[in-house]
């Protein structure tokens, strides 16, 4: 380490200058060493953040198992299974936290969350994947350089603005055209959500398509395949794990999105798969109700349980998406 420069300094320096330059070198090395440690320590913040998110969500959610005051109103069993809310009536699922008998059934919220996310996918997947195929396979360079920033612009629109647009403009238009009974329903909320996940699915699909090595394309052309045939039979199958990863990630995003569903879904916790009914999702429930609950009370605890559930679901979907990305890389021989 030190041998490289020390001899040069020795031959030219007087003893006094030598000791001072030695001291400077030592100080510079000490600074270097300290910087290394400080940088490594600060780089751990991301790990600490994820750990703290888990710890503090669980900390506030845990009373669902342990607290007797919480158990007077709600238990995990009551959240999961249909309850006989009124004596003599058959048991059913209901989410009505603010009522004489608070009801905290998870099922209506879960069905609502998945329903809206699936509608969002039905809208966003065809549009984004087709768009990505066009952009990577057909579009001339200049068109591509216009499309990609436009998609980035869409990605940069705050979700509260999209929620506003769906609430004030789109919902009325859709109702005028299709005559739905409810202006705000799962379909319009799903379209709004679709707008937020289109950039995600488009960008990742486009990346996957361009990651297919040129040799695949050249081989197909050499065999006489048309552009169409090459795209459908060679490029798309080769990129399919990446496109699937994009869709899974988009689904995870759609489940966790808050502002659009909060503003444009009608927020009624109805247990039904009917897409024309208003719907209430897990994130919208947290956002709408957290402002008015007693700190540490049963309702507070339940909302943190919802948070833990949402966190678990999205981490699972992100993990699945990452797994498909690694499969894409393995498939394309590490060139992706």
């Amino acid at each position: 380490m030190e041998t490289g420069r020390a001899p040069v300094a020795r031959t030219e320096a007087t003893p006094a200058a030598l000791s001072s330059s030695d001291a400077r070198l030592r100080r510079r090395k000490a600074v270097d060493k300290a910087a290394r440690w400080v940088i490594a320590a600060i780089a751990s913040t991301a790990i600490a953040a994820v750990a703290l998110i888990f710890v503090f969500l669980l900390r506030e959610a845990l009373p669902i198992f342990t607290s007797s005051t919480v158990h007077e109103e709600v238990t995990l069993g009551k959240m999961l299974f249909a309850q006989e809310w009124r004596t003599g009536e058959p048991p059913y699922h209901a989410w009505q936290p603010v009522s004489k008998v608070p009801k905290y059934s998870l099922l209506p919220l879960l069905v609502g969350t998945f329903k809206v996310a699936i509608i969002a996918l039905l809208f966003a997947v065809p549009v984004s994947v087709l768009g990505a195929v066009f952009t990577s396979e057909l579009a001339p360079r200049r068109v591509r350089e216009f499309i990609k920033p436009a998609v980035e612009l869409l990605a940069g629109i705050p979700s509260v603005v999209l929620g506003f647009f769906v609430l004030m403009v789109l919902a009325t238009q859709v109702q005028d055209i299709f005559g739905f009974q409810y202006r705000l329903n799962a379909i319009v909320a799903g379209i709004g959500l679709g707008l937020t996940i289109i950039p995600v699915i488009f960008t990742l699909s486009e990346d996957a398509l361009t990651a297919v090595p040129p040799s695949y394309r050249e081989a197909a052309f050499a065999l006489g395949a048309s552009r169409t045939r090459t795209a459908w039979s060679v490029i798309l199958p080769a990129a399919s794990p990446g496109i699937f990863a994009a869709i899974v990630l988009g689904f995870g995003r759609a489940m966790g999105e808050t502002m659009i569903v909060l503003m444009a879904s009608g927020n009624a916790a109805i247990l039904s798969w009917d897409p024309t009914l208003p719907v209430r999702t897990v994130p919208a429930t947290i956002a709408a109700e957290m402002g008015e609950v007693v700190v540490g009370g049963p309702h507070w605890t339940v909302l943190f349980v919802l948070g833990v559930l949402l966190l678990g679901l999205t981490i699972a979907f992100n993990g699945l998406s990452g797994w498909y990305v690694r499969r894409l890389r393995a498939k394309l021989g590490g060139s992706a």
Partner: protein
Amino acid sequence: MIEAKRYRKSTIAFATLSGSGVVVILGCLALILVDIFVHGLPQLSWEFLTDSPRDGMTAGGIFPAIFGTVLLVLLMTAAVVPVGVITAVFLHEYASPDAWYARLIRSAVYNLAGIPSIVFGLFGLGFFIQFVGGRIDALFYGGQVVWGQPAIVWAALTLAVLTLPVVIVATEEALRTVPRENREAALALGSTPFEALWKVTLPQAGPGILTGAILAVSRGAGETAPILFTGAAYFLPHLPTHPTDQFMHLGYHVYVMATQSPDVEATKPILYGTVLVLLLVTAALNGLAVWIRYKLRRTNP
């Protein structure tokens, strides 16, 4: 001949089908932008940008919301940029890519980027407000609630955690554009690794790092869900001057006016004006970041 015709037909069909995807995306984008500009632009005036709301939000301006958003984002940037840049420096300059610790950090960043924004709101409430704020109050204020309540500092820190992956990813990309030789030249001239980083690598990666900071600001300015219960308020008579003050915010203003206004028609013009301002702020920042990045790519292919 027949073959060639079929060829061309299938190509046209393919182009039409896949092109329709692009058309729908660009069409939606255009619809949204046109609607908001057409209704919002007449609202923009000096008075609207510098006045407080009056008459139950049906008149006046949105200055406190602009001020609150800017202050929030500045606090967030001060917290997130140093941490994000240093993390990226560690990952790209210090750790070997296969080291377990670097992989752990990468996995944490990846997961952090995927956590829904409302969960960050819960985290801010449970950790910053209840835990950190509550402890400060118990230790220094004898249990009197000063820090243990929604406040601009907690909202800013919550947003800083949320935007951390944005800064890290952009900074790493910026560091990748600095040629290996430049570092090696600095080391060969006798600088320590830290001096090479400080005097050669970081300055050269500067514009790319700036891009990351701008993207984080744009993202932070637009996020509403994490600040719903960590510090945003619908109306405040005073501007925030202390870290524990609450604040007004453009996104929150839009949310409340659009969903809880007793007379939507009366507040609609102001609502459109607010949406346009929010959109202009975030889009302008985004556009700036995209422009810098494209320029950088052109100069360092």
